[in-house]
């Protein structure tokens, strides 16, 4: 399985290889492999429980893996905690947003990386100033920097979670269902942001249930089923129906690269669908 280079522009920035995670007796991830390049959006799709979020959490250091390796820029990376992942420039927007509800937006944005004064104390004003600058780019209407984020709307909370990731010059961005809680207008904003960040050269791993979003935003699609990678394909090479086939049936369409999770093509009466 060394030829995962389908559609990848240049050498991969991130390589996940043969990642296995099991909870009790359940194989949440079974030899899952993935490559992600700078300046591309890779969509990770699949049913609930397919292992998308777990794979993302392995990369972000929030979930320990049983086996498998992670390489960043061709060098094996030791990631075993969220702290480690941040060191490698990996930022994550979690599905739950992972905000501390009782503290304000600036404090959340800088959580774990607070700015300090020369006295070693928290420099709240400097943090607020930077938070205002970054939120001005994301959500210019946002003005409630002093309120606990609990009192913010879904979209505002989402902007806080996004601001946290882009403020620190991330190289790799993991977005777990970034638009699940948003209205149409806010969803469009997030879409614009993803395109902008991609143009800035970030590698983006997008987890989504929304097949339209995926076709709209992603360069490549990686489908998972039962903890295994079914197939990886360039968005241009597959149709929406074929992607649904990947997700639901585990069927690898022509033009896609089959993974270990692809079912035997002979089960479908279509000899043309043989994996390359």
């Amino acid at each position, binding site marked *: 399985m060394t030829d995962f280079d389908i559609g990848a522009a240049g050498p991969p920035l991130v390589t996940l290889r043969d990642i296995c995670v099991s909870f009790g007796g359940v194989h949440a991830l079974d030899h899952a492999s993935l490559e992600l390049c700078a300046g591309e959006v890779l969509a990770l799709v699949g049913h609930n429980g397919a292992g998308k979020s777990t794979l993302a959490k392995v990369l972000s250091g929030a979930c320990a893996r049983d086996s498998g390796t992670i390489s960043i820029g061709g060098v094996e990376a030791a990631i075993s905690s969220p702290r480690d992942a941040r060191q490698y420039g990996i930022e994550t927007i979690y599905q739950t947003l992972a905000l*501390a509800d009782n503290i304000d937006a600036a404090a959340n944005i800088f959580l774990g990386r607070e700015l300090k004064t020369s006295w070693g104390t928290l420099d709240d*004003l400097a943090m607020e100033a930077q938070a205002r600058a970054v939120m001005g780019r994301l959500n210019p209407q946002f003005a409630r920097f002093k309120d606990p984020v609990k009192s913010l709307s879904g979209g505002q909370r989402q902007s806080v979670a996004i601001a946290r990731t882009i403020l620190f010059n991330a190289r790799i961005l993991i977005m777990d269902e970034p638009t699940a809680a948003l209205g149409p207008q806010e969803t469009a904003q997030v879409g614009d942001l993803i395109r902008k960040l991609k143009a800035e050269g970030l590698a983006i791993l997008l987890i989504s249930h929304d097949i339209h979003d995926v076709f709209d935003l992603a360069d490549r699609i990686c489908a998972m089923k039962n903890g295994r990678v079914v197939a990886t394909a360039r968005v241009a090479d597959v149709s929406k129906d074929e992607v649904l086939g990947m997700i639901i049936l585990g069927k690898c369409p022509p033009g896609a690269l089959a993974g270990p999770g692809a079912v035997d093509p002979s089960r479908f009466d279509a000899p043309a669908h043989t994996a390359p």
Partner: protein
Amino acid sequence: MKQSRLRLPALFFRSLGLDTRTLGLIATLLLIWIAFHLLTGGLFLTPRNLWNLSVQSSAIAIMTAGMVLVIVSRNIDLSIGSMLGFVGMIMGVIQTDLLPKLFGFEYPATWALTLAAGLTFGVLLGALQGFIVAYIEIPSFIVTLGGLLVWRGAAWWVTSGQTVAPLDDTFKLMGGGPEGSIGAMWSWFVGLGACAAVALSLANGRTKRKKFGFLPRPIAADIFLGAVACAVILGAVAVANAYPWPPGIVARYAQARHIALPEGGLFIAHGIAIPVLIAMAVGVVMTFLAKRTRFGRYVYAIGGNPEAAELAGINTRWVIVKVFMLMGFLAALSGAVMIARLNAATNAEGTLAELLVIAAAVIGGTSLAGGVGTVAGAMLGAVIMQSLQSGMVLLGVDTPLQNIAVGVVLVLAAWLDALYRRRTTSQGV
């Protein structure tokens, strides 16, 4: 749009940017004081009673400052009363037995060595409990309930239950009393120093906000705040200085120094009591830790969402251990104040103190759900509780009835706080 309909006083009030919850606590405290003053026929708001109230509140207030952080981080510490008793016994033995054997009685550094040893012990006991809570993942309720039994037993074990007394003369100053107060002149110095600190911090806030291009508070608001704060500080000093030493002690003092007693006796003011100074210092330091350091920020973040704190790369376990270490430190400090005041270390010292401390924190607006609470509010809660008790003593209310009243107030406070919170969040303010 809504602002234009507000009248000028309301606008001014809003520009002060004060925390309404803390203001509510202060108002409650003042109401209680005035009510007791009227009910007792003018016995409550006297220099003597207020001075005593301040000394009685200090031991609980010291621990309450630590309990806030414990509760904010979604933990609880039921062991502090027993820990206080245990460390108190250790400090008693060190200063009456161990150190005198080495250096003789009334060695000038006895108090410092004793206190240092006691505080170290407190930190170690807290670290042990914190380690079990954070790394072995046993709920703090269980760990510290165990601690409550273990440390109380250990306190008995130090001297097989014998009371240790009398204590070192210098150490005793930590307990207050005429000797354990700093007198009129030093009280004024402390008061003026505090006023200067208030002015400096207000000025500093203005320059910093300007530096980052934020609108500073209206200058009138800053001046008003500063003036009120200074008036309260200097007023408190004046009250402490208006309470004279009792004539008997003055006579003994005069005799010892060969001063001829004038006709009407000698007016020697108590000034601020040392335990009160200790409690104030604890309040300032703990507020600083909670609001201005990473440690404090992490404690609140953990209380708000432990998972998010972990995902943000915070070493949450180590933060929890530090919270318990701090609590142990403050329990030991409070133990020093308590045994100094009693001039004896007993193995029952601090029994049920943990419940008073938790109650004070809750009355002061700390939420047991975690993430919410301020050091200042909790310490005010301690003063409110002590005021209730002191007032009822003045009224001649029996102890059982006192307990009933404090219990009712505790539940009432928690209810009011829940109402306040529900209202403010539903309004989305």
